[in-house]
């Protein structure tokens, strides 16, 4: 009985996978050779239309998919301007450098690094930075989707022009 139940589960999973493979993904389009084009012609047309769509929109889905995501933000905290922080860092670094006997070196270090103590973040600053990052990621995703949509419309227009029904 246990074995039968296990088999039923396995069959269910297999069926789900099988059906899933036939269900078109969201945004996927289908083309039909309305003028009786053979597979070879269709493949050539697709390749040429792809190149045309890339030229028209400047978007190549293959290279766009390979682009890495932007890394999450780090210091300095959002409440402090980078330039202001750098200036302050330079001033403080200069003081530190003067104490240590090398004012120039201290100033350069302070300006470049934002400061070990000065770069600390409050919880609010951290939360705001995370929110800004999420928004930025969302906007980047939207922009990417928009560019991909433009490419798809260009590709479909080309294929339709060559006698394919596109849905």
């Amino acid at each position: 009985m246990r074995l039968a139940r296990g088999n039923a589960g396995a069959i269910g999973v297999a069926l789900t996978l099988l059906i899933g493979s036939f269900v078109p993904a969201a945004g996927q389009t289908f083309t039909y050779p309305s003028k009786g084009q053979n597979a070879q012609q269709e493949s050539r047309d697709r390749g040429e239309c792809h190149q045309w769509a890339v030229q028209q929109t400047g978007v190549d889905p293959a290279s766009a998919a390979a682009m890495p995501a932007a890394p999450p933000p780090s210091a300095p905290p959002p409440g402090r301007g980078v330039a202001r922080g750098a200036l302050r860092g330079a001033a403080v670094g200069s003081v530190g450098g003067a104490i240590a006997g090398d004012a120039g070196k201290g100033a350069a270090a302070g300006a470049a690094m934002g400061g070990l103590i000065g770069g600390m973040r409050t919880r609010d600053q951290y939360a705001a930075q995370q929110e800004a990052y999420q928004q930025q990621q969302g906007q980047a995703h939207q922009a990417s989707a928009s560019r991909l949509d433009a490419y798809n419309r260009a590709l479909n227009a080309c294929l339709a022009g060559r006698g394919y029904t596109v849905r």
Partner: protein
Amino acid sequence: MRVLIPFAVALALTLAAGVSALAQQASSLLCAVINVVECSAQGECQRSTIESANLPRFIRVNPAARSLASTGDDARTAPIQSVERVNDRLILQGGQQGRAWSATVADKTGQMSVAVVEDQTAFVVFGACTAAEPERR
């Protein structure tokens, strides 16, 4: 047994003096940040994480060079304005980008406490330090 007791006491004293001397004479300390607490002017304190507070996990303290430095690739630093030794404790103070800080490191235990203050907010950082060789670059 009577022979062993003076020996044990002598050994303990030697070890304690050694640890203390190590902390006193070390040209630099390597300090691990363990806990961070953030307090607001409203009197609320909340535990923070090292990452959210944007602190390095390890800080190299060099009283002779009067500098704090992270050990990571970001190489963040802070100058030390004041170095004192009070009651077997190293007392350090400084300021950076509108923040003032004070730290104490106990010679014998290496326990570190740091208070970092700015307008309406204060951080309290706890950690532990050990003697370290100067960083070779």
